[in-house]
């Protein structure tokens, strides 16, 4: 029978450091995608600037009822054009897709493997060292 693991006590400074570290990681992961977005926004703004033309409800493809509802919502054709012409780009970059699949799958495989190892230790202490 092996001896149960006794963890060290953590001081107040260590507790504060660990808490702040997790928060820094969260804020960093919130901010990083902004770098990509800033680039995409600049491209979109350039494209919009190049495509400034006079718009009407007809050129925007809006039928009579749709026009009525836009007007009730406080929109004229120029204002509505921004929303109507704004589109998602769903073209798929195969390399990015493969990287994303590997990251998500790798994360779960890593977690399940390490967790299983740790869990066996927990069960051994719980049931063997009573």
């Amino acid at each position: 029978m092996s001896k149960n693991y006794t963890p060290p006590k953590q001081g107040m400074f260590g507790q504060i450091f660990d808490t702040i570290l997790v928060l820094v990681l969260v804020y960093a992961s919130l901010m990083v995608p902004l770098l990509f977005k800033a680039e995409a926004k600049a491209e979109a703004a350039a494209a919009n600037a190049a495509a400034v033309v006079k718009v009407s409800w007809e050129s925007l493809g809006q039928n009579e009822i749709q026009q009525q509802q836009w007007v009730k919502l406080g929109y004229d054709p120029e204002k509505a054009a921004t929303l109507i012409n704004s589109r998602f780009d769903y073209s798929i970059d195969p390399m990015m897709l493969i990287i994303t699949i590997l990251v998500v799958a790798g994360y779960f495989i890593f977690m399940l493997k390490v967790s299983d190892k740790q869990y066996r230790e927990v069960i051994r202490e719980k049931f063997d060292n009573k």
Partner: protein
Amino acid sequence: MAKEKITTSNSKPIAMLKVLNPFHIWALGVGIVLVGEFMGWNFTVGKGGAYASLIACWVIGLLYTCVAMIDSEVTSTVAAAGGQYTQAKHIIGPLMAFNVGLYLVMAYTMLCAADALVVGDLMKSGAEVMGYANLDTKPFVVLTVAFLAWLNYRGVFATLTLNLVITFLAFTSLIVLFLAVDPLHQGVVLQHQALLTDLPYGWIGVVAALQFGMWYYLGIEGTCQAAEEVRSAGRSIPLGTMGGMMTLLVAATITWFVATGLMPWQYLGQAVTPMYDAATLLGSSQLQLMLFVATAFAAIASANGCINDASRAWFSLGRDRYMPVFFGAIHPKYRTPYRSVLFLVPIAISFAFTGLLDQVITFSILSGLLGYTFMTFNMIKFRKMWPLGSIHRGYIHPFHPIPAITLLTLCCATYFATFLGYGASLLSIMAFYILASIWFVLRRYKFVKRADQFTMPWPRPKGY
């Protein structure tokens, strides 16, 4: 069931109060989610069009039905604060548990921030209608989070009783709005024939819409967080959770039906408060006022439930030393995880003040999605390690393993949906959880008492 002893940081055994019933569980689950029917669900329309939104509503409804079935069985058996976190600890292992705890804290804290922002924006809209332009929303954000945190600090019974009342009123407002649009007579108020279009992006837009389809139901699994505070977990959790899912399916379908019959999809796809806009379009000031109040109630109920759930998850992480033990304390008088409640107040407010609403929402959704992926492994292992009959289960869900396999398939589809349009956010958030996991293994796990991670009175698991 006897109260479980909990050791606070100063070693005084205190237990949380067992005062909740199935209605409180319903209020906790639906209260967190119902705001999703008032705002957020409509981003599905932006990603794929109106029909894609309806398909996403039902497909993701199936995902959450699987979540509710699985959760009801495991939670009614592992009845402890922390919900899925405690389940992971007992069934999969410490690293998974640490990650699940973080999913819960992040999903709920960020959702709370988004709710507070909605309250602020709503106040601004209301002020504009009354002739006060450019109202500063920040004080309303702070007030909302601070008031709800105070309520949570004082006790769970009052907190969830408030949720029960305001959630019921918000849900009733959706029914009233549905009746007000004369749903049986097309063309009188509703204009589906003129407003509904073909799928603007084709079927890939339908898949993409699954991402924000989660807003219709995100947070229903939070019912598990109250497992330690209900009088009968085996009865209350399944009743409250499944009842909540039925309520949400009805509310989501009504919401889609009313909004898509009143607004062009391009407007609806980016609206901040679509149901309030729907009432405005009807031209009735009473309906407008009702939806103003109901949207505020829904956002407050959601933020309230989120503070409740995030604090319990953070408390559980602290209690088990996965995070600093300072947070694992219960208030000696109010029996609430007060340090965790107070700690999360500035965090939620700071998330709200970043101004990154779509990032915050995506973080919340992805954290929820990672949690649902965990549930599939958890359920399969749970039945293998303790087969039926080997331990007492409060509830046994039918058709195992079909719900778990369905859930995993739908989770994979939703990851792909997030990749479409939010790929950078997906990788960035995964990087956070990977770095946090490495940090846990290399530094944090040394503070964890191994044998203390298994507290259920169960026999040794099969295969271990």
